[in-house]
């Protein structure tokens, strides 16, 4: 299983990636949609965890772009808003978590999403 974490808060995604590695999950991280698209060209990912609000390419738009190129990729959204509004705007069937996240809840969502 290989994951890509995308959030403009680098300190957040780098720490989540390290914590996931302790739980046997291999995750790369980037801080923008542009970097994510570039990274996905050279690495193969089963799932991407995306921040909803990011400069230039939003998480919702990035999901559409990645989905088009990699139809089997699964997605989990992270939102800082404490509501599902933005999430619902872009998708009705993806998984989402509200920041601050619980790492065990994230692992559980990852497993759930990959079984889908």
């Amino acid at each position, binding site marked *: 299983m290989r994951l890509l974490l995308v959030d*403009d*808060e680098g*300190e*957040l995604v780098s*720490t*989540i990636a*390290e*914590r996931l590695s*302790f739980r046997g999950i291999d995750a790369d991280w980037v801080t923008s949609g542009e970097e994510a698209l570039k990274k996905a060209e050279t690495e193969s990912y089963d799932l991407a965890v995306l921040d909803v*609000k*990011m*400069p*230039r390419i939003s998480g919702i738009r990035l999901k559409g772009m990645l989905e088009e190129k990699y139809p089997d990729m699964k997605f989990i959204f992270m939102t*800082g*808003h*404490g509501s599902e509004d933005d999430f619902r705007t872009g998708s009705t069937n993806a998984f989402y978590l509200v*920041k*601050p*996240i619980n*790492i065990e809840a994230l692992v559980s969502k990852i497993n759930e999403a990959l079984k889908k």
Partner: protein
Amino acid sequence: MNCKPDMIGETGLHFFGKMSATNCHDIKNALAIINENIGLLQDFILMSEKGMAIDQERLKTLAEKVVKQVWRADGFVKNMSRFAHSIDEPVVNVDLNEILELVKMLSSRFVSMRGVTLRPEPSTNPVMVTTNPFLLENLVWLCLDFAMEVAGSGKAVGLISEETKNGARIRFTHIEGLKDTPADLFPTEQANALLKALKGELTSDPGAGELALTLPGDIGS
């Protein structure tokens, strides 16, 4: 019941909500980073209980990261507090440099989302006017929002405050796309209502890529 919309009231509520929401978002991000760093510390403790050695330098770095995010969140809370208190008095003596700095800090996420760079050029001396601080913050935001929208390829907006003969002026400069923007796009109905309330005047120089907001020295005079 009178349901006639109050233009300034509605615009103000919208502005207050927008700034509150974006700052909540930033505070949430700081809390999320603190949460992950504390979580990482807990992971290290669990590993240490299983006999793995903890790197003291990592612990030191973790503590520094947490402290950094606490201060970052504190900055957002301080700005929000200053902003909330700007409603306390309808008319006060304010320094335009401070108003510009506050609006810049409050809207930093919108600025970053648009990929625009703000270039404040605060004057060395305070630029004082007696006015309604909340309405002025609202109008500065509307001007800044428009300036960023039409920033063009330069992706920069300069902010200058200066004294005039009868009051003061805020200049939004380096707006490269202003020359290609229809003149009737701004000021909007909302901005015009605020201009009227503040007894201000907005002029545009598309060739120079500049908007100038002129304010009286004392709104009550």
